[in-house]
């Protein structure tokens, strides 16, 4: 049985934007609220793992990633997030470490 759900940021936008919606299109807030949070809720309820694929985009601003993952951790706690998500980033491997840092430092 498949215990994972995969979402790819490239399906949302190949040019991820800024932090908040009012700053411009394809923001971290938009992705988190409209796509990631609903999927994460389902993941929590079904006790599955959520895999987020960071590949296939032109690049990331730090605010986008922090708002997505740090923002999620500020709602659901870092421990919960780290337990239920995995990150794929083969094109820029350092992004995986960045995301984990954003999650761990979300409330600091």
């Amino acid at each position, binding site marked *: 049985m498949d215990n994972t759900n995969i979402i790819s940021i490239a399906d949302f936008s190949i040019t991820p934007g800024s932090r908040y919606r009012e700053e411009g299109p394809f923001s971290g807030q938009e992705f988190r609220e409209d796509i990631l949070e609903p999927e994460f809720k389902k993941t929590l309820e079904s006790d599955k793992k959520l895999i987020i694929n960071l590949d296939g985009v*032109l690049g990331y601003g730090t*605010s986008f990633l922090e708002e997505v993952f740090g923002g999620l951790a500020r709602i659901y706690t870092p421990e919960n997030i780290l337990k239920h998500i995995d990150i794929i980033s083969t094109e820029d491997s350092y992004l995986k470490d960045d995301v984990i840092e954003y999650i761990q430092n979300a409330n600091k």
Partner: protein
Amino acid sequence: MKLYFKSQKYINYSKRRARKSLKRRLIHKRRILHIRRSFYKKNLKEVSLLKDFIQYKQHVLAPDNLSLIDNPEEVILFFKKIHEILNNNQRVYVILKKVKNIDYGAITVLLSEMYMFKLKKIQFQGDFPSDQNAKKLIIESGFFDYIGRTDVRQNAEYLAGNDNQIITHAHKNVEPVLSLPIMKESSITIWGEKRIDSGLHSVLMELMQNTNNHASSGMIGEKHWWLSVNHDKKNKKVSFVFVDHGVGIFRSLNGKSPDSKWYGWFEKAKSSLGVETNEECLKQLLLGNLHRTVTQKSYRGKGLPNIKRMLDLNRISNLHVISNNVYSNVDKNEYKLLNKEFDGTFFYWELCENNINSPWTIQI
């Protein structure tokens, strides 16, 4: 034969005419005096240079080396003079005749200054460099696409196929989709095919976000950012200039209110990191140490350090930063204080053949 008017009507009429005539003569005298003073103690060569713009009370002579990267002190002083004239709401004539070397950074800043004059409906005129290479660079840069315009498009647009162009955005918004056509064309110039260099999009996002977040409201032109993209096909290199006329990094920090975490930032930085000058602060900002030290929030303030990281990861090259009174060649780890402040923030970087890149996996 002189006419003498006896009736009061014609006496009043005659008096009005005499007042107007006197006013015109006085204006003309002032103008002649201004011209004579301008020519005073000047040789013939200088006089012929001045004749073109003598109607402009204010004229500014550009330095021979009009390059912000190589000659920041003189060039910043040149732009400061133009800015002072703008603040006095006077028209200006910019003399570029003696310029022998010019770069895209200076062209972009000059354009942004000109635009601020246009926004205030004040005349901004100038001439071309006598040096043909310098003249050609200005013409090909995209500078003249903006000469006749006072409107600014709602969305910044990159026009495919132009080797050099200057893009601007007036509404502080972050425009992520701009990276796509720029990346496509830049990668073809550099590597001969479409490739992805994630450093470009990252840097653009950080800079647009910074302008958005830190440019305060109220000042004309402050919400504009200007991006210049320049393809050097011979050397397989694309250079970028990003300018905003906000208050600059350090003025922005100094202007924080007492309820802001950045209030008293310099004292906190001095006691924790031992920094004493702005150039040391810029270095620490780029390393990410300053934000963490001052605000105690590790999840914000990663924009500038990320730009530095893109340089360290060889995603971009030749990064230069100028903000307020600090100039930095980040690539060479050179940081120095300037005698004059630059009004805003200036970033320059390049993409070249040896920057790390990956295959084009995007379905566009």
